[in-house]
């Protein structure tokens, strides 16, 4: 048997392969993104995989495959489940033909997310089965189990991961793929056409099946008791928290380690809790397990001592639940300088934010989620509001009304990227046009989904698996909504003359106005190749040290050893933005 060290995400991909998953669809989002990338890289012959334009479409594509008889996987980050919630809740009623597994990758502590939310609460709400893994081996094994549970109990399975499970590596024993044939599509309108009459019947059926599933959960190998040296302390836990508990308490205590966590196995929890003296419930974020333990009538230690916010770790668990001292920590007299993430050298968003900043007094800007979110930092302070994907085009509509009502003359600008436009910006554009909103919408098209690590999107000429794909034209879509020539500017954002003119035209316009910036992400490999050997240089005789070039916050330019210089020639792409902000003509390009 082959053993490999894998991330949880790699193990999910492997598990899908071994389980004979036939189709996988996803929209990228940290920490889930690598699951589909791994499927495409390693199992493309066996699993039909694709990026969808958002999580709702991803889940619906997977649902169609499942209803058609395939084993199907839909993958998303935690907030993606909010987007996919509409089909997900109804699929909870319909059930499945081929197994349907929905991966939700949660991000406690918001390492790379706009919020912290515990998606375990979705399972009881949408009436889905739920599975949680605590390391890569379990990721692989439990995905296989999830497909089986899904088919056996006619239910979609929510596979709940967290950042530390997704991105941690541990050893995995590989198995062969067990071929499962696609089930023949028979068609069953009463089960899959959710009109009220059918929906009522399905709801009753779902409740019946959940009772059966809970019976199963009490004996499932995914839920196990590990008796330790003593029954004085019994720990109820799931997911990564199990690992922290193990690190702190070792074999001294007993564990109820839960892997099938909806429906929760009441009888099993009851018998474990009766057998131990004191119950600790160790879990991140919401008191999901704790509420169950309490509802069953047991007192326990949980969120009264463990934090509700952020991640747990071994140290937090130790401090909260034992009287062992914290390890001593070294402290130095000096501390590390802050190292905030920045827009890369050559990033097109820098040109946009630099131009926007010049008209700050006339504009209120609304941002969105993408690399351009970094524009909120110094020195650009590029927007005031950023809520969720797509909101960059819709929040401005209401905000403009609010400003108008209070006599605030400033123009509201909204911004989002190409991937975000396809995800949920298109509908906002339609709202703006149809309601004749007096706002300026900016689509920052860099040819790629950059923030999450360069995934293809409908505007890209290749698919997830590298095949040529038909490009959906953003410009054509904008024009199709009725935006006329004089309400549209398509500009190179590095070209400050054009960028300034577009922003000024937007400020002056009455009613909807759209700016599309077009310039590729500097990290795209084929693009980066064209920069090799090109960089800017600063003529020290002409430089007056006015620092204008430092105010564009380019990581290739620095004040070092008393002079302003291009400190990183490899990073510099010779985009030329710094040349345009230098009033003394001190900067020029080399290598063209």
């Amino acid at each position, binding site marked *: 048997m082959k053993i490999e060290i894998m991330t949880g995400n790699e193990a999910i991909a492997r598990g899908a392969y071994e389980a004979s998953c036939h189709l996988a669809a996803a929209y990228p989002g940290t*920490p889930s993104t690598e699951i589909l990338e791994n499927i495409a890289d390693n199992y493309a012959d066996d699993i039909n995989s694709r990026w969808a334009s958002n999580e709702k479409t991803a889940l619906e594509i997977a649902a169609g495959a499942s209803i058609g008889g395939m084993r199907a996987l839909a993958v998303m980050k935690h907030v993606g489940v909010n987007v996919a919630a509409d089909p997900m809740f109804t699929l909870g009623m319909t059930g499945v033909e081929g197994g349907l597994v929905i991966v939700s990758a949660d991000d406690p502590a918001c390492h790379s997310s706009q919020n912290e939310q515990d998606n375990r609460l979705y399972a009881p709400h949408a009436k889905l089965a739920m599975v949680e893994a605590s*390391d890569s081996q379990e990721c692989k094994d439990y995905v296989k189990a999830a497909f089986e549970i899904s088919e056996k109990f006619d239910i979609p399975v929510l596979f709940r991961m967290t950042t530390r499970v997704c991105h941690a590596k541990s050893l995995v024993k590989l198995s062969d793929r067990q071929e499962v044939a696609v089930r023949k599509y028979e068609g069953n309108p009463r089960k899959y056409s959710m009109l009220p009459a059918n929906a009522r019947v399905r709801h009753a059926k779902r409740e019946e099946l959940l009772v059966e599933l809970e019976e199963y959960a009490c004996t499932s190998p995914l839920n196990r008791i590990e008796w330790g040296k003593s029954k004085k302390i019994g720990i109820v836990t799931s997911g990564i928290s199990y690992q922290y508990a193990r690190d702190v308490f070792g074999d001294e205590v007993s564990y109820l380690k839960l892997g099938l966590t909806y429906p929760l196995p009441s009888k099993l929890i009851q018998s474990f809790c009766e057998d131990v003296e004191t119950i600790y419930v160790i879990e991140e974020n919401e008191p999901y397990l704790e509420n169950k333990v309490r509802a069953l009538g047991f007192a326990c230690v949980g969120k009264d001592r463990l934090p509700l916010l952020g991640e747990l770790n071994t140290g937090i668990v130790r401090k909260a639940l034992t009287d062992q001292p914290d*390890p*001593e920590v070294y402290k130095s007299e000096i501390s590390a*300088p*802050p190292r905030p993430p920045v827009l890369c050298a050559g990033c097109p968003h820098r040109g946009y934010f630099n131009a926007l900043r010049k008209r700050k007094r006339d504009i209120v800007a609304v941002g969105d989620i993408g690399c351009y979110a970094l524009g909120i930092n110094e020195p650009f302070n590029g927007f005031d509001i950023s809520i969720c994907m797509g909101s960059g085009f819709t929040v401005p509509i209401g905000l403009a009304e609010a400003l108008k009502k209070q006599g605030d003359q400033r123009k509201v600008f909204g911004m989002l990227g190409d991937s975000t436009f396809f995800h949920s910006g298109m509908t906002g554009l339609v709202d703006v046009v149809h309601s004749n909103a007096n706002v300026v919408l900016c689509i920052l098209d860099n040819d790629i989904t950059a923030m999450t690590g360069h995934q293809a999107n409908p505007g890209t000429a290749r698919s997830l698996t590298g095949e040529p794909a038909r490009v959906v034209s953003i410009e054509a879509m904008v024009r199709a909504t009725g935006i006329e020539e004089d309400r549209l500017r398509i500009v190179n954002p590095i070209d400050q003359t054009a960028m300034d003119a577009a922003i000024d035209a937007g400020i002056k316009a009455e009613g909807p106005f759209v700016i599309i910036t077009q310039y590729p992400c500097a990290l795209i490999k084929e693009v980066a190749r064209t920069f090799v050997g090109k960089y800017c240089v600063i003529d020290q005789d002409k430089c007056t040290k006015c620092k204008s070039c430092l105010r564009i916050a380019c*990581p290739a330019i620095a004040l070092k050893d008393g002079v302003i210089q291009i400190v990183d020639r490899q990073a510099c792409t010779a985009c030329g933005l710094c040349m345009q902000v230098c009033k003394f003509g001190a900067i020029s390009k080399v290598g063209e």
Partner: protein
Amino acid sequence: MRKNILLIGVGGQGTILTSKILTAGLVELGFDVKMSEIHGMSQRGGSVTTQIRYGEKIYSPNIGEGEADIIVAFERSEALRGLPFLKQGGTIIVNEREIYPLPVMTGAIAYPDNIIENLQKTVGNVLFLEADRIATELGNIRAQNIVLLGALVAFLSLDGIDWSELVGEMVPPRAKELNQKAFAAGFDFYRAHTAKA
């Protein structure tokens, strides 16, 4: 036996490849191994950490404050950021390399002086290594991570497998020789350093 290793650096310095090679070697040596890293903003010049734990049986994939047996700082000031994770009596290997964060570049704050002296004052075991210079002399600064890997493997006394061969397998073919030399240079540097001490 359980060992905790923290790698800390700046996006683009090759911490991820380093940890990949190290964990592959540890697996080959028969250890239980876990590794944890936070991706995300790493490509945008932020600070990156990778945590590796190995031993007979490992549970948590991440390391808490005061728990790392060794820290390898790929960038000088990142050593300060990693310091709270060091166990009492632990060792810290610091690359000489300085990479200015944006607030330093724009002159808003100063890059700290005397980092090494400060570390030496606080921690007993500090190994200062010019991995960037060594790699540059060997042909490409990008091999600095493998110089550091060599020193780390020497520190951990991980005998029993051919590390040079493993490095050769895991780097791009055209960079094989350079990286094998880089590994040897780091390894020898550590051995020479401890022989002196």
